[in-house]
Every structure is written in structure tokens, then in C-alpha cells.
């Protein structure tokens, strides 16, 4: 009878994999988020690849990789062409985040999962919405209204409300009910009784310390290190939580007139802050207010220097300083290089403000106790010179020739295929499986990868053994155990030659390697990636403090209980947390709690019945409403009459309608009632959970555990001997309710 709703997780359930869920509403497929992880592992996107073409709209909730990272790749390779809906900051900061990731990856590898053009193309069809804007979808989605609402957590972060025929589906992941420096708390609590609530269990088991205390500890730790002449490294995201950290530091530095330099280093640092300055209307009330009154833009930074080049830090090499730099995962980016530099000295501190993604260096360092040493790969992009350049040119030539050959062979193949010959099919496959030329000497690994990717990019060439096109699949060869990647003791032997090679290389470069490499990225000078593995002794202090800006477990539970959805779907959280929250909600919130597995489609169509009727003037003129808060309520007796085109009209009943059981409406709180009675001059006190009124009368509420689940009336008992008091108190009790 109601609107049909199906939810299918494509990723991000029972674990920390990126968020991506398919929600079908009456056959209209909405993709809620389209995330990837910092490692850009295509295997994670397999479920998405199967459904991408059937997606009708994509709703993005936060501007980080976990929520929108896969958009460019999915658009390019899976044919995800549906319009994307997001708020303005999610669009802009999301774009910058993607740029930052691409540039960081590109500096150390021949990364080609997507290009800058792919990012631009994917973000081109983003439709930007405002908070509380009711956007009416058209054509296939006719009748569906989507509206973004404040979620907290990240700037522009969104709780999506999807409405059809008066039924709400609310998608709320990574929300924060607390007001922060730059963000307002979520408005999730203002939604009452949606048909379906989809939310995450990410923090179900975490409880936070008091905010002010946490902020103080944060500052104390940083200052302690700075005063001991150390450097504090804060691995952060590109344009999300970092904003809150910057404000904390700015504010404290201004209060205490500190002079330690603070740097925000990312490939897009200056444009990030430039854009953030123009997003005041999306920020907290206090920021908006201070701008309205004094035109002080909170992000007009006075203490934090924005730099896009690591070399700018050279002058500050031995100066105590705070460096905020991306990525938070330490996998790539400036944070990776900075970590390697800083880790070997005990006076330094690496302060994590969010939990690292699974399988990343940051996560490895966050275990307790932290590892003594970690193995890292240092990579650098250098231009080709001398023989290599020659080899490259030759290779290019060769590729060109091969391409010509390939084309010819394809034409040939097609001709032959017309004659449906199986033999030539396999020969074609062979001709396309060109091994990457080994000309680029010291970057075999990277170019090998490159070669594989080429196949992936160039399309769905069937390997000679398969009948239908398929994705190439490569197994991750790294071995993992409970403590992370299995370390080969041989790696600990420092290899003289290799580090020499490294030194030689860096000498050969000009003074600003990063700029040079960025430069290399942007023009097409032939270049290669030089990488070597090394082991870093972790001597610096490591610390984790929760600045993720998500509601903690207790708050999440109370928010869900307040929202009281008719059906609840739990996603994104460890198996433990998901199970825990599921049990909790099933007991205290609503009986129908689902926690589906990947690609498990669950049907959360509401079993709600509903039909529309017209209320005739005649009926309404007899109805007397009683006002209760924002509601007005009345008992109504009527008969139906069918008027034009199957519209039912309610008319007043022709004869006296049967007496109905009376209904008492109201919510009695015993404590309030006690107050009320004492104002009426009645002796009243609590005794054993009941309210003892006067000498003999007791009023009691019978609580029933099943009541929490949403239905059922309150049970109130009044008892006592026959006396005047009894009737007096009963009268007062009645006055707390409306009788219908």
C-alpha cells in the first residue's frame, strides 16, 4: 500500500569500507554516497560496477573520499551518468579533496585510476542544493522530493530526507549533534517518525570525553612538544575536519599570543581556505553572527600559514612548529614524507585526530603499543634524462607502431569476426596483451601496474581463455596478519647501494623537488617514478585524540530513540558495533532493525496503510478541535461518499453514530503532576515509584517495556478508599488530559 523502499548496501557494512548504498524508492534508484578509500582499491567497487548503470540519482553527504571518492572512477568505467546532488560545500570541498588525492598519488606513482579531467567531468553534473531546499525530482522520479539537512561533522555535511507521498526516508551517516566552532549540530533530531532511517553504527561503541577537556589536552600536548623544541605533525584530511583544528589553533594562538609557526600544507591548501571563506552561510551561527556584526571572517587566518609546497618548510627545519598536512592516512601526500622525516626524532609528535582507514600506515601506527619501526616506500617523480629519455622515446615510437598494428589487427579481427572465426579471436587477444616494455629501468613495479591498468582502461578485452568480457582481477600479494603487514626481516638490513642511489637522485634535482614534480605532472615532460623501500624507526611520540566530529555512542542511541523511525537500517560500522546497536535499537527503539550485508537487498517498504479523503465543509463545521501543542485534535464520525474520479469524501453521518470508547489524550509526567497537585494545596510525595496524594490516594504509572517500541497507551492507576480526596484528585488527574 505504501511506497516501496529497498535498501542494498554496495559497500560499507560490517566494517569500515567506503560508504555506498542503493536505495530504490518505487523503482527509482538512488545511490546514497559513492565512496572509495585512500588506497583506491578497485576490488571494493565491484558491487557498484554491477548496478552503476541503473542508478537514477546520486546523493552525496560529505566531502571526503569515503563518501564521494569513487565518483570519477565510476563515471568513467562503470557508466555512472546519473545526476549527482550535493550541497555547495560538499561539491567544492569534495572537488578539492579529489584534486589533492590525485596530485599526491601522481607524485609517487603512475596513478591512472582517473585523471584530473575525469574528476572535473564527474563533478560537472553535480546539482548543488541548499540546506532545507525541497528539490522535486522530475520524470522517472516524479513525486519524490529530496532535501539536504544539516549533519555536522564536515562543512556542508548532509542528512538526506527523501519524501514520497508523505513518507520519509532519512539517510543520516556521520552526523554530529554537538555544535562545534565552525559547524552547527545536526537537525536530525527534528525529524520525527520517518518511515525508514538509514544510519551508521560507526561510533556505537565509542564514548567521548568532555569537549572542553579534550580541547585543552589537545593544546597542552602540542605546546609541550613545541616548548621542548619539537615539531607536531597533524595528519589531516584535505578540507574537512582540518577546518575545525585550524580554528582551535587560531583561537588558542590568539588568546595566548603564541609565536610558534603553524602551517597548513596540502596541494590545494590556499584555494581550500579561499573557498571556505565564502561558505559562511553554511557554518555555525556564531561564525555567521561575528561576521554580521564585525565582518570578521573566522577563516581570515592570522596564525596559520597556507603552503602548497613542502620546500617552504625548509627555512623552518629546526624551528618548533605545527604542521597540518594531508592525507590523514599517511599513505601518500605530504603527510607521508613529513612523517618519514619527523619519525626518527624523539622530540617530535605525530598527533592523529581521526582513526586511520583500515590497512593504512596511520592505522598501523595507532595500534597499542605502537610499532617500533615501520617499512615505508619513498617515491619521487623525476624527469627522464640521457639514455632513459632515449629509451622512452623509442618506447613511444614502439607504442605508436604497435597501436597502428593493433588498429589494423582490430580491423582485421572485425573482418574475420564477421566470418565468425574463433581462431583469430584468440590471436587478437594476444596482440593486445602487450607486456609493458621494460625500458624504464628502476620503476618496473610501477610500470607493471601501469601496464595492467592500461588493459583495464582500454576496455574489456576478453583474455584468450574467457568467453565473455570480464574485469582483470589481481590478487593483493601483500600478506597480513593481526599486526598488519607481515614484515620480512631482510628488509631491515639497510642496503647501502639503494640509499646511495636515492641520495644521488635527490642531488640531481633542483632545489624545489615538489614544485618540480607538480610541474612535471602538469606538463607532459617524460618522467618516471623512482621509489625505494626503507624502514623508519618510529621514535617520535604518537598520540590519538578523537576530533572526528561524530556523535558518540550514547548520543547516537538517544538520537535514534528520539527520531523513533518505524524501520531502521544500520550500516557502516564494525561487525561488533553494528550488532551492538542493532540489539539496542531492537529493544528500545523499534522492532524492525535491519543490518544487511553487501549486496543483500532488504525490503523496508512500510506496511503502513493510507488513503486520501476529502473532508466536506459540512463535516468540518461540526468538528471542534482541541489544541495540544502544535497539534489540533478531535473525534470525528463520518460516512464516505464517492465523488468524482475515485475521490472519497467524508460527510457527517446521517444518524446518531454509535457511542465510541472515549479516548484520553495527553502525556502525564508524574513529577509535573506532583508539582501541579502541590499548587492545588494537596500534600503529595513520591513513595516507591508511586505518587502518594493526601492521606490515602496513590497515583501510579505502570510502565510496560513494550511501550518503548512506540505503540500503546500509558497505563495510569489511581486507587484509594472512597472519600472526598479521591474525587478531587481524580478531577485534577482528568484535567491533565483531553477527553475525546
Amino acid at each position, binding site marked *: 500500500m505504501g511506497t516501496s523502499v529497498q535498501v542494498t548496501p554496495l559497500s560499507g557494512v560490517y566494517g569500515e569500507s567506503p560508504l555506498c548504498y542503493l536505495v530504490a524508492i518505487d523503482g527509482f534508484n538512488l545511490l546514497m554516497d559513492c565512496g572509495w578509500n585512500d588506497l583506491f582499491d578497485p576490488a571494493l567497487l565491484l558491487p557498484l560496477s554491477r548496478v552503476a548503470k541503473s542508478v537514477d540519482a546520486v546523493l552525496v553527504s560529505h566531502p571526503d573520499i569515503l563518501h564521494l571518492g569513487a565518483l570519477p572512477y565510476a563515471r568513467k568505467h562503470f557508466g555512472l551518468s546519473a545526476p549527482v546532488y550535493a550541497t555547495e560545500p560538499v561539491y567544492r570541498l569534495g572537488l578539492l579533496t579529489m584534486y589533492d588525492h590525485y596530485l599526491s598519488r601522481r607524485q609517487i606513482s603512475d596513478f591512472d585510476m582517473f585523471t584530473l579531467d575525469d574528476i572535473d567531468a564527474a563533478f560537472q553534473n553535480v546539482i548543488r542544493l541548499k540546506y532545507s531546499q525541497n528539490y522535486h525530482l522530475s520524470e522517472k522520479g516524479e513525486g519524490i522530493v529530496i532535501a539536504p539537512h544539516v549533519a555536522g561533522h564536515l562543512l556542508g555535511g548532509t542528512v538526506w530526507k527523501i519524501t514520497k507521498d508523505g513518507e520519509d526516508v532519512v539517510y543520516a551517516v556521520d552526523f554530529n549533534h554537538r555544535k562545534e566552532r565552525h559547524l552547527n549540530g545536526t537537525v536530525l533530531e527534528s525529524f520525527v517518525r520517518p518511515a525508514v532511517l538509514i544510519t551508521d553504527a560507526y561510533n556505537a561503541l565509542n564514548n567521548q570525553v568532555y569537549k572542553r577537556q579534550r580541547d585543552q589536552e589537545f593544546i597542552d600536548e602540542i605546546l609541550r612538544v613545541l616548548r621542548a623544541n619539537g615539531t607536531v605533525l597533524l595528519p589531516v584530511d584535505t578540507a574537512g575536519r582540518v577546518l575545525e583544528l585550524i580554528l582551535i589553533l587560531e583561537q588558542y594562538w590568539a588568546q595566548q599570543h603564541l609565536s610558534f609557526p603553524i602551517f597548513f600544507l596540502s596541494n590545494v591548501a590556499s584555494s581550500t581556505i579561499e573557498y571556505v571563506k565564502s561558505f559562511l552561510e553554511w557554518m555555525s551561527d556564531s561564525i555567521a553572527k561575528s561576521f554580521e556584526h564585525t*565582518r570578521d571572517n573566522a577563516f581570515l587566518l592570522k596564525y596559520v600559514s597556507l603552503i602548497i609546497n613542502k620546500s617552504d618548510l625548509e627555512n623552518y627545519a629546526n624551528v618548533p612548529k605545527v604542521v597540518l598536512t594531508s592525507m590523514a592516512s599517511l599513505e601518500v601526500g605530504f603527510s607521508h614524507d613529513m612523517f618519514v622525516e619527523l619519525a626518527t626524532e624523539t622530540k617530535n609528535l605525530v598527533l592523529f585526530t581521526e582513526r586511520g582507514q583500515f590497512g593504512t600506515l596511520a592505522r598501523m601506527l595507532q595500534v597499542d603499543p605502537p610499532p617500533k619501526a615501520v617499512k615505508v616506500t619513498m617515491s619521487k617523480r623525476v624527469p627522464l634524462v640521457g639514455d632513459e629519455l632515449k629509451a622512452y622515446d623509442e618506447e613511444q615510437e614502439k607504442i605508436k607502431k604497435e597501436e597502428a598494428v593493433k588498429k589494423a589487427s582490430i580491423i582485421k579481427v572485425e573482418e574475420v569476426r564477421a566470418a565468425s572465426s574463433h581462431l583469430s579471436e584468440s590471436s587478437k587477444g594476444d596482440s593486445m596483451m602487450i607486456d609493458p616494455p621494460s625500458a624504464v629501468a628502476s620503476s618496473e613495479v610501477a610500470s607493471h601496474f601501469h601496464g595492467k591498468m592500461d588493459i583495464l582502461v582500454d576496455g574489456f578485452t576478453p583474455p584468450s581463455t574467457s568467453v565473455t568480457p570480464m574485469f582483470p582481477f589481481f590478487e593483493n600479494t601483500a600478506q597480513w596478519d593481526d599486526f598488519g603487514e607481515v614484515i620480512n626481516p631482510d628488509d631491515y638490513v639497510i642496503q647501502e647501494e639503494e640509499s646511495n642511489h636515492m641520495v644521488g637522485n635527490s642531488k640531481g634535482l633542483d632545489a624545489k623537488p615538489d614544485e618540480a614534480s607538480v610541474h612535471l605532472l602538469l606538463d607532459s615532460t617524460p618522467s618516471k617514478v623512482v621509489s625505494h623501500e626503507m624502514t623508519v624507526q618510529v621514535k617520535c611520540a604518537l598520540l590519538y585524540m578523537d576530533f572526528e566530529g561524530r556523535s558518540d555512542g550514547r548520543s547516537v542511541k538517544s538520537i535514534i530513540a528520539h527520531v523513533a523511525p*518505524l524501520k531502521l537500517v544500520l550500516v557502516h560500522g564494525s561487525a561488533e558495533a553494528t550488532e551492538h546497536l542493532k540489539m539496542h535499537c531492537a529493544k528500545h527503539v523499534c522492532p524492525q532493525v535491519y543490518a544487511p550485508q553487501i549486496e543483500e537487498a532488504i525490503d523496508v517498504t512500510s506496511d503502513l496503510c493510507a488513503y486520501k479523503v476529502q473532508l466536506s465543509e459540512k463535516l468540518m463545521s461540526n468538528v471542534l478541535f482541541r489544541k495540544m501543542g502544535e497539534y489540533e485534535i478531535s473525534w*470525528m464520525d463520518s460516512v464516505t461518499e*464517492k465523488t468524482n474520479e475515485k475521490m472519497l469524501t467524508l460527510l457527517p453521518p446521517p444518524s446518531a453514530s454509535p457511542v465510541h470508547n472515549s479516548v484520553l*489524550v495527553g502525556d502525564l509526567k508524574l513529577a509535573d503532576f506532583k508539582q501541579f497537585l502541590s499548587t492545588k494545596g494537596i500534600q503529595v510525595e513520591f513513595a516507591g515509584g508511586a505518587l502518594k496524594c493526601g492521606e490515602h490516594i496513590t497515583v501510579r504509572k505502570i510502565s510496560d517495556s513494550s511501550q518503548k517500541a512506540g505503540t500503546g497507551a500509558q497505563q495510569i492507576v489511581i*486507587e484509594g478508599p472512597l472519600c472526598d480526596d479521591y474525587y478531587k484528585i481524580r478531577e485534577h488527574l482528568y484535567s491533565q488530559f483531553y477527553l475525546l
Partner: protein
Amino acid sequence: MASFMTGGQSMIPNPNPTATPITREGDQLVLTPLGAGNEVGRSCMHMSFKGKTVLFDCGIHPAYSGVAALPYFDEIDPSTIDVLLITHFHLDHAASLPYFLEKTNFRGRVFMTHSTKAIYRLLLSDYVKVSKVSVEDMLYDENDIIRSMDKIEVIDFHQTLEVNGIRFWCYTAGHVLGAAMFMVDIAGVRVLYTGDYSREEDRHLRAAELPQFTPDICIIESTYGVQLHQPRVIREKRFTDVIHSTISQGGRVLIPAFALGRAQELLLILDEYWENHPELHNIPIYYASPLAKRCMAVYQTYINAMNDRIRTQFANSNPFDFKHISPLKSIENFDDVGPSVVMASPSGLQSGLSRQLFDKWCSEKKNACVIPGYVVEGTLAKTIINEPKEVTLMNGLVAPLNMQVHYISFSAHADYAQTSGFLKELMPPHIVLVHGEANEMGRLKQKLVSQFSDTNTKLYTPKNCESVSMYFTSEKMAKTIGRLAEKVPETGEAVSGLLVKKGFTYQIMAPDDLRVFSQLCTANITQRITVPYSGAFEVIKYRLKQIYESVESLPVEEAEVPTLIVHERVTIRHESDTYVMMQWSSDPISDMVSDSIVAMILNIDREGPKMTPIEEKTHEEMERMAQKVVHSLMVSLFGGVKYGEDGRLVITVDADVARLDVKSGEVECENQGLRERITMAFSRVQGAVRPIPKPQC
């Protein structure tokens, strides 16, 4: 019109209000301009519908001062206003707001866009400072403005808000930064208030949007009446040509302009022109307005309220960081040595810096004055457009007017083409013209009337305080949900349940579902009372049986003590030798039954075991008595009631005759109203006369 589906009601605008006498007062929508009715200035429109009141804009009239400049607030009761919506920061739209918030009993909520609020504060502080009026004439001071800031709430474009059942959102209006057109939806009737708007995109602002939904009423500005603007490209070319030729001849250019709004647009044009003409780089451009300088931060921040062009430029650098333009504090700081371009306020050349420069430059032939916008009647700027030979300077001397005077309008108000095009797309059934001189407005009305002659469109041009009423007959829609809706009823079937109204949406549900679908909940009150009684329990049973039809004894196995159940409502348990306990669930009938039982038990105690047999009446006797009572009650209600020949009651009220069948309750009558009244009365009389019915369920 998808939102009709989600709204609780759909409205059919009544094309001919006078032909439907049944229209109730609640269906009447009243619009009263308190300002800007047949005039330009002090915009203020009062609207009330279904007990909800909205006020649009709250401006002052720039030509008057003190209370005379206010809209006619004494025509209304400010305390009844639910929502006040401000379209943009201009004085004639926002400047009486501090007065209204601080000096009246207004208690509603105020909304404006973010950028409007930021500029409002600066603009009004400046206004308070420069308006040279006596202290008594001051409407408010700086502190009032600061206090008003706390009461103003912000709304972003397209954001939908709801206050007291009034839903509203706003669209981009062009005109100035942050200018909005408000769409208000009360019970399904939509009203669009455009404020000042422009349908033409310029250098930094978007064109006014075309709302997605057709409003039922469109309140629209008519400043430019039937005039037509020159295309923007031509205007800009004339503007830059005049400036370029003047300075290349060594002259100075004065641009008198209001500090905010158009000024920023002109600065963008100039900055870009200078960028493209390196030969001009040594010629300084100044904007001599501290206010504009203060507001520049707002322009640099709310980039997202501007058009795509600005937002694309922003990716490289902030376009409001002017490269060739510098601020000028006062004439003392101005080093007037060679050709220059100065933009100064006020726009009317009444006084201030623009006038000082004008006095200085007006007699030099190579200088030029470019008037870039709408000029108010009676100002010097209006005078010099007609290029008089001489002008009077501020010091009273008369000087020859030799400088070139150019009038190039950049005013971001809609012209006739835009207005008629906008209305043609929207096709609102009711159009209300405001914000225009009476003549211009009249001409516009004429032209629009002929344009919409073949449609049902109504045009109104109310004067200040002149109300316009429109009627909207409403069909209320309700949604039956939950248990009650498990089966869709057939014609004639009864539907009974709770009717819950929230805002303007109605839901019908079973009482048990109330908690599921609303934040309300129901309660059961169980009452337990102990009554002293020391007699035999059997006596109670005997007595009760005489009064009530249904008195059941529970078998002793189920209840440990002798137990009676009366009418399936009240349970009486013989707890001990000294008392009985009664238990029931609260509702009026059970309460009554229990009261009678209590009274009876107490009476047994008092009377002792004495029993008097009750006279048994026959059924016919009972019936006859009942009929007599019904008859006399009907007489008391309707007067002329006689027994008809077929046993029916004939009721005569005035000329109408009705026949009432006393047994079935059927009424025959020509007059519909009377029939219903009799049916209702009879059913109530029946309820009073007959014994307490057995519980239904």
C-alpha cells in the same frame, strides 16, 4: 504541481468571488499595502489569510523624515503578525525594521538572507549617522539596530521554512546582492512577492529566477512601468566610452551613485575595463564611500549568492579584490591633480562628497558626470539631466554648468519587457502592482490588462491602506493512515477516528495509532476504589440486577473472591467483610455507572437489609412514557409539534413542515437544514430518554 500532493490541501482559486455567498471569512485573503501602494518608497505589504498574517518588507520613504517616513503601521496590529520577510537591504525595503522590532508590540519572527543581514547592519548604522534630523525625529538609534540583529533570522535561497503553518522559501531576485523574492504558502495558496527584481543577469548578479510553481497571487514591482531598458552591452559600452574619452582629454569623471548595489556592478565594469586597457593604468579610480568599503568584505564573502561568472572567476582570484580601484576617505585626502574617475555618494547630489566634487568640477568643459541609475524627483541629479545652463552651488553661488552630463541607467529593476515576460511565464490568476509612481503603474496596468485580456487574470493597483480581498474556496484533504486505513471503505460506510490537524495537514487515525503517527499519546486511567460495606455480597448483586441489564458473576475459580462485573465495565470484588473494591477504566459512562453503584452500596448500608419490590412496568408502558417525554422535549425545541395521523410527529417551523418517525428516527423535510437539525436533536433526545445502553464494544 507536485507539491499539491504533499500539501494537505488543494485550493481552487475562485474566479468570481461575488457569486458565491457561502464563502466563509476564513477563505478570504486580504492584502493591504502599508506603503509603496501607488508610490516608490517605504515598501510594506500586509497579508492575512486563514488567521495567519505575513508582512513583506519594512521600508522607509526616503523623501520624508521621522514618523512620516514610516509605512502606515497604525493600520494594523503588529502583535498579530506571524512572519516578517525582508527582500533586500535597500532603505525603502528594510529601514523601518529596527523601529518595528524595537518600538512596536511585534512578536513574530523576521527573516532575510545572509548577505542582506550583513549589509543591513552597516547600511542602517550609516543611515542613522548621516540622517540629520532632530533627536525627537529619530526613529531609532544604533543600539536599536544592534538589538534588532539578534531577532533577525537568516534564510538561504530555496531553503524551505515553516512557521505556524506558514511555509515559505525564496528565490534569487537579481537587483542587489542577497535580494530575494519570497514565495509564501498558506494552506496551499501561494503568494509570490517579488520585491525589487531584475530578470537580466549582470556582471555579478544572477537574473531573477522563474519560480517552479505558479503562484495564486503575484505581488510585483512596477518601478519602470512601461519603459524599456537598453541592452546591457550597449549601456556598458556607452559608459566606458564616455569615461575613456573624457579622461583621454584630460578630464575628470564623477559618478554619483548609491554606495551599495549598483556601485559594485560599476566598479566591476571599470576594473575589468582598466585590466583590458593598460594605457589607462596610470589613471586612478576611486570609490569615495566608507560604507562601500566596509561592505566590500560582505561582497568578497557571499560569492555563492552571485552568478556563475563571478564564481568561476573566484576559482582564480576574488573579483572583488579590485586591482585598479582604491577607496577614498574624504575630499581632504583627494589629490586632484589630473584626470581621474571618482564614484561618490549620494546618488542625488544633494550633499556630501558627490556634491563637493560636482561643485568643484561642474564649470570645466572637459569634465563629465555620469548618472548611472534611477534619480528621485527634486534632487540636483534629476535637474542636471535636463542640462540647464547654470546650477546653484552648495554655497549659494550660481555657476555655469559646462561639464558633460550623461544619463546611463544601470538600474536593476525589471522593465516592461521583463515584467510582462515574467508574468506570462507564471500566469498568476491575481496580479497586484506595487512600488511604482501612480502614472507609471497605471500605464503598466493598462498594458497588462490588454495583454491578459483573454485570460481570467485580475489586476489590482491598491493605494496605501486600501485592502484587496480575494477568495479561495478550499477543499480540505485528509490522509487516513494506520489501522483505520487497512481497507478503503465503500460508499456509505462509516469512518470514525481521531482527526489530527498539524499546520494545514489533516490525518485520520485510530486512537491506538496516535502515538505512532504523532508526538501525542493516549492514556488509560484505571481506577480502584474501596467502599466500606459489611453486608452480604449477594444483596449487592440483587440490587444491581434490578438496575442494570448486565450483571455477571465471575466463577470463583477465576477470582479468589466473589466478583461481579457490571455492564462489562465495572468490576466489584468482595475483598473482605468490611469493604468491597471497585475497579474500572476511566471514561464518562463507566464513571457514571460506578458512581451509581457506589451510591447504591452506601444506601444498602444505610437502609439495612430492608427490601422493597420494585414495581414492574410493562414494555408498552415504558414506551408510552418515553414517547411522551420525546414529544415534550421536541415541543420545547421546535414549538409547533403535533402527532400526525400515522404516528409520526409533524413539526412546523415557520413555513417548513417536517415529519419525524419516532421509531426509526427518519425525518422527511423539504428544508435540508431543518432536517439535519431535527435529526440531530432527536438523536440527542433519544440518548437522554432511553436507559443507559449496553456497552458497544
